[in-house]
């Protein structure tokens, strides 16, 4: 909390040094500062306008009875589009599939990452550095590139079109980054507390579950939600590894709505897009503040 208020209070400093300046410079810099702020505000608002146009189309046409491709405020506000897509086939089953797929994969990722981060963060070993370097290397490999061989492999071992297989793959592809994040968060927890637990007779696993993980709660939340959002938005993996329509998560099933380009009911597509995006956006809002706080905390411990 205190860290976040510190960063929140960042704006005042630029204003305060101005009066402290020597007399003859006092007016010009202050005036220049003011006009510069105005210019910056205008530029940013222009950029914001450019960025918001596609989003505005999404919101407007989802409640427009007669929506086209141009963003314009609806003349006739209606919830019909939402009503039309709120069916088992279009919305609920794909979203449930997404939830099962991404929820399961996230659980695997977070548990495996927390376990792996523990020895990496706590014990010194000659293997730590090479291992972390490999992890770092893997985080930035383009997963897209290995999807063709993964497909081939999944066909051979008969995992194709299986939810659990796809979830395991999603989990593994997210693991390197999750381990990296988790280890960094864990490094921030002082060792003293855990040594106290050891003295009281706790095993290292007990120390991990009872002492470290609760202490790095925000970090675990960040890793969990971040992994979940990444998987929720992932299109290529389920697109390649799942075949039967009734297993498809929302990221793939949305193409059904899009249908053959041309005969699309844009209002419904927009309504479904909102329903599908909402969880990711809301979850991000949830961690946005903690993300800042968490990183600030990490910086404080390190620096």
């Amino acid at each position, binding site marked *: 909390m205190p860290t976040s208020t510190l960063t929140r209070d960042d704006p005042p400093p630029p204003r305060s040094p101005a009066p402290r300046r020597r007399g003859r410079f006092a007016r010009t810099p202050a005036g220049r500062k003011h006009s510069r702020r105005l210019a910056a505000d205008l530029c940013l608002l222009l950029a914001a306008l450019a960025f918001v146009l*596609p989003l505005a189309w999404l919101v407007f046409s989802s409640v427009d009875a007669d929506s086209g491709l141009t963003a314009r405020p609806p003349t006739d506000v209606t919830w019909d589009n939402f009503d039309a897509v709120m069916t088992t086939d279009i919305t609920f089953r794909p979203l449930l599939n997404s939830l099962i797929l991404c929820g399961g994969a996230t659980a695997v990722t977070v548990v495996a990452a927390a376990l792996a981060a523990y020895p990496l963060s706590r014990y010194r070993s000659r293997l730590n550095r090479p291992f972390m370097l490999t992890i770092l290397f893997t985080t930035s490999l383009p997963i897209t590139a290995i999807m063709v061989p993964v497909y081939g492999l999944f066909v051979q071992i008969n995992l194709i079109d299986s939810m659990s297989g796809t979830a395991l793959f999603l989990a593994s*592809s997210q693991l390197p980054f999750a381990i990296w994040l988790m280890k960094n968060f864990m490094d921030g927890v002082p060792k003293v507390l855990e040594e106290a637990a050891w003295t009281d007779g706790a095993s290292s696993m007990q120390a991990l579950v009872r002492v470290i993980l609760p202490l790095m709660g925000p970090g675990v939340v960040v890793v969990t939600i971040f992994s979940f959002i990444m998987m929720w938005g992932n299109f290529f993996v389920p697109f390649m590894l799942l075949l039967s329509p009734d297993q498809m998560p929302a990221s793939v099933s949305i193409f059904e709505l899009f249908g053959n380009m041309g005969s699309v009911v844009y209002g419904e597509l927009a309504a479904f897009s909102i329903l*599908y995006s909402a969880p990711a956006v809301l979850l991000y809002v949830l961690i946005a503040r903690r993300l800042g706080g968490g990183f600030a905390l990490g910086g404080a411990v390190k620096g």
Partner: protein
Amino acid sequence: MTKHVPAPAGSGDAAAGAAHVPGQAGGGRRPRPGPRTPAQPPNSVPRALLRALPVGPAVVLMLLFLAGPIAYCVWIAFTDLQLSGQAESSFVGLENFRTAFGDEGFINAVWLTLVFTILSSIVGQNTLGLALASLMQRASKAVRTVTGAIVITAWVVPEVVAGFLLYAFFRREGTLNSVLDWLHLPSQNWLYTLPILAVSFANIWRGTAFSMLVYSAALSEIPKEITEAAEVDGAGGWRKLWHVTLPMIRRSIATNLMLNTLQTLSVFGLIWAMTRGGPGDRSQTLPLFMYEQAFKNSLLGYGTAVALLLLLVGALFSLVYMRMLRTEV
């Protein structure tokens, strides 16, 4: 320090076992209060294994689902494996790669990938992200919050949804053309005339937030005294940027460029949702080319060879990125 402690303790209670020990080995096996120091070589191997045990599940998963496919990728890139009907594939050596470099479609995809990456990641996301971040430093709080929220929303929205939004934006009857009409500028069917430009802009729209966040963090770490000193010395906006700001955040720039490029190299869903690589193959970057070869043309071996090339480029970038970060590991 602890090295000295075991010796007297060992000899002290070794009245029973002193006969058969050449020193520390016997004593080390007993659990003792100092197990955190790497003192005794004989039992350090089993203990190290025990300690490393929690890494197991993660390692198994990554070996099975990441290292396995990569190894498999390397193998079938050298075969003529096809998707249907073929009982067995045979080793064809470098044939797939030779085909690739003589294949117009492949060369086209390489060029488009280059254009897409340079335009959207290196020029677009990076520069726009830096511009937004530095403007935000000066802007008033309300404007900063609103702009930040909008740009970040574009980033958090799922890839496919972003694709549809920008599809609607760039279509003939879409928002962009309405705006252009309103400004009395010529409009056109962007997805048909300049598809690669449209998908590049889509990627900029979607990815700028990341650069913006990286640069906001980096800029806020520059001490105020330094920029103020530059101002007192009479450095104007651009000179300050070039001589003070950019050198101070160069590590962030390098990191950000690398990550943006890697991310952009593997964009699939966004382009798929907007153009499917079309019209024709005019927005078919390498990932889409790879997909088409492997699945539409059933040339799994050939598609994988292309994938391997993509993977190599990615690995190269990744290695450079690691070198830049090496002090932090």
